[in-house]
């Protein structure tokens, strides 16, 4: 399935590792949360990046605990949308970004619809696997749907309320 | 709704037209008709199954949505009639007199 990173269609450099398979010495690998917990010591000794799949019914705090509070040891967290109606991972994304300051890549997988990319991007998701013939076009169309936002989220857009106050302030100075 | 159907009960296939939501019924010639009494009635599972691919194709082709199989009262001469309040209303429209938009007369002059 096509992978988009920051809106660009890219080849997936990550190896998604089933739990039974041995961990290769190098190259970025994506493991399950259980494996991360079980084999933390060996995994962290690798020099290549580690990513983890976070099921949408596991609290973000469990992942934080599994990495000893240091989320930045992870380069990728893969979120799951088992059905497009199941929006739990939006909250996980925001908790990872805002509450825990996670800086690495956040990838959405599963039943991802084009019309949801806007919401995902605003929750700090920067990568998606999406079934589409024009993934870049879809991303571009969706994330630019609305020119302004009402509420703060996990992107860097300035909410309308703040823009309004700033405009008032400028008027005040001019007057 | 999804009531359990007797195997030999007379049945028809119904749906709503995608573009405007109008109730339609599958006719014998494979078209969709808005008139229940023009619907094709089947009384056995093989006949029903045989109708399905064509109906599903029309769902795929964005002609209709909400495909459903419903039981009907079947009078071979007059054609099928709806069974139950829901299907009666689907076939004939609301049972109430709909509001009519009439111009409003000016108020009577003050006494």
């Amino acid at each position, binding site marked *: 399935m096509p992978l988009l990173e920051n809106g660009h269609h890219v080849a997936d450099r990550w190896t998604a590792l089933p739990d039974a398979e041995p961990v290769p010495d190098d190259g970025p690998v994506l493991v399950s949360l259980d494996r991360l917990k079980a084999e933390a010591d060996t995994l962290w000794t690798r020099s290549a990046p580690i990513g983890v799949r976070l099921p949408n019914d596991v609290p973000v705090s469990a992942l934080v605990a599994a990495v000893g509070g240091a989320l930045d040891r992870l380069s990728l967290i893969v979120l799951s949308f088992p059905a497009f*109606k199941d929006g739990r991972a*939006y909250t996980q994304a925001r908790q990872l970004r805002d509450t825990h300051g996670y800086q690495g890549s956040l990838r959405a997988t599963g039943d991802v619809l084009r019309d949801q990319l806007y919401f995902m991007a605003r929750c700090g998701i920067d990568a998606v696997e999406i079934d589409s013939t024009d993934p870049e076009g879809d991303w571009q169309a969706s994330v630019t749907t609305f020119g302004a936002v*009402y509420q*703060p989220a996990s992107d860097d857009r300035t909410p309308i309320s703040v823009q309004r*106050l700033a405009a*008032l302030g400028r008027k005040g100075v001019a007057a | 709704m999804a009531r359990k159907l007797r195997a030999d009960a007379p049945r028809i296939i119904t749906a709503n037209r995608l*573009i405007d939501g109008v109730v339609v019924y599958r006719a014998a010639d494979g078209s969709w008709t808005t008139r229940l009494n023009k619907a094709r009635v089947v009384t056995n599972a093989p006949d029903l199954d045989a109708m399905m691919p064509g109906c599903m194709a029309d769902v795929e082709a*964005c002609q209709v949505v909400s495909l459903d199989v419903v039981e009907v009262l079947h009078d071979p001469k007059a054609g099928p009639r709806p069974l139950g309040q829901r299907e009666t209303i689907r076939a004939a429209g609301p049972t*109430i007199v709909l509001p009519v938009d009439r111009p409003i007369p000016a108020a009577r002059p003050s006494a």
Partner: protein
Amino acid sequence: MYQYDAHDQALVDQRVSEFRDQVSRRLSGALTEDQFKPLRLMNGLYLQLHAYMLRVAIPYGTLSSHQMRVLAHIARRYDRGYGHFTTRQNIQYNWIKLADAPDILADLAAEQMHAIQTSGNCIRNVTSDPWAGVAADEIEDPRIAAEILRQWSTFHPEFSFLPRKFKIAITGAPTDRAAVKVHDIGLRMHRDERGAVGYEVIVGGGLGRTPIIGKTLRPFLPKEHLLSYLEAIMRVYNTHGRRDNMYKARIKILVEALGIDEFRRQVEAEWEPLRDGALRLPPETYAAITERFAPPLYEQRTGSVATLVRDPETDPALARWVQANVAPHKVPGYGIVNISLKGTGQIPGDATASQMELVAKMADLYSLGEIRVTHEQNLVLPHVRLSDLPALWRTLDAGDLATPNVGLISDIIACPGLDYCSLANARSIPLAQALSERFSDMTRAQAIGPLHINISGCINACAHHHVGHIGVLGVDRKGEELYQITLGGRSDEAAALGRIVGPAVPAHQAIEMIAGFVDTYLAIRHPGELFIDTVERLGTAPFKETLHAAA
């Protein structure tokens, strides 16, 4: 009232383009019905029995006369000349074509309206006191907070795919006219000991299959924390609300399962990192929105509704209408005029395009251009000079809009039911019409006094039957439409759920039962005692006796 600025306008315009594109992708087959359904629902578009139904948002029930004219235009141009005002202060059109929906949304957007989040598993249109800003008993205009909530919840990226729909109501007055205890979140304004205004946060109320009265999560939340605290509640709900069973997916089920104390603990834990973050509402933000709800310029006048009613010079028919339909305004010399959409034999909440236009015209002439929609499915002209009442009344009367029954037995709340709704078990409208004929004697209705009958066509309870003084629920027993009656429900500050009396019966028997209950009440009430108070004092037992006597 609130007017869009360029930001608000741009967003609704962009929404129209987005939906136009989605509809064309659906019609071309690029979207399947499964994929399209949540998108159309987020624009208020349902597929009902005979056509699409479009639900248009009327935020906190406030409308301008211009907006009302657009609603009339849509009824005429795209529907069959009428619309239905709902218990959530919205309007629904019953005969919409999917292909027309984008044009309708464009027409709405041109007059600062939309259908955003009037359906779907997201935060719905925030409802409020229909008398907001004019009620004599109000602490603060609740529409300020409602508008802040509208903006926060609109296209909220985290909360657009919740386990289930989410309804918020807010009241600024001690008398609760917004039914805040039967919403997912209810907000009730209070003053603390220093006089500062804040909110009591009530959570987990709701009707439907599992009716529950909401519980107080926080007795006093300072204004500045409104959004961060609500975001924390939503976050707990989005994470832990059930998704395996749609009948158990509302927040009330989660709150019941966890217990209010554990739920509170989780909310507070989520809130901690949010409370002093970007969602904090500085006083300037409140001030900026408050300005947009600045009260109109009233004239210096005197007099009250009561003196007018008592004046022997007043036409008795006018006096009766004033007594039933006009409420005290906070400014002397003005009244709040309630327009009943419950004329004898009428469909509750329905108004024709011409009636909408008449109301718009009356608003321009007599109510500073403003109109409200109530959750009782009526309309309100909020700023009427008492001296204008006679002229207004005569004109409304000519348009069949002066039925003097607001809050009385024939002011029946009813959902569309099986005549339109694809989820219905039984019809609601014909029963409401029959009851309104039965109780068409307005003198008797006034003698009976305030009494709410609520009729829902299925357990979804769109007409709030659980909190009707007399509640009626349509059920389907082997294809027969039957009605189950409850007594003693109420949705005000003393909110309570009605109790079932007797078996479910066919419509004609339901009417006789209700008539019998009313007779019983008249026979046993204390002088001046309201129906609901009699039921509370004596329980349902004396009413059950009525049933036995009738059997």
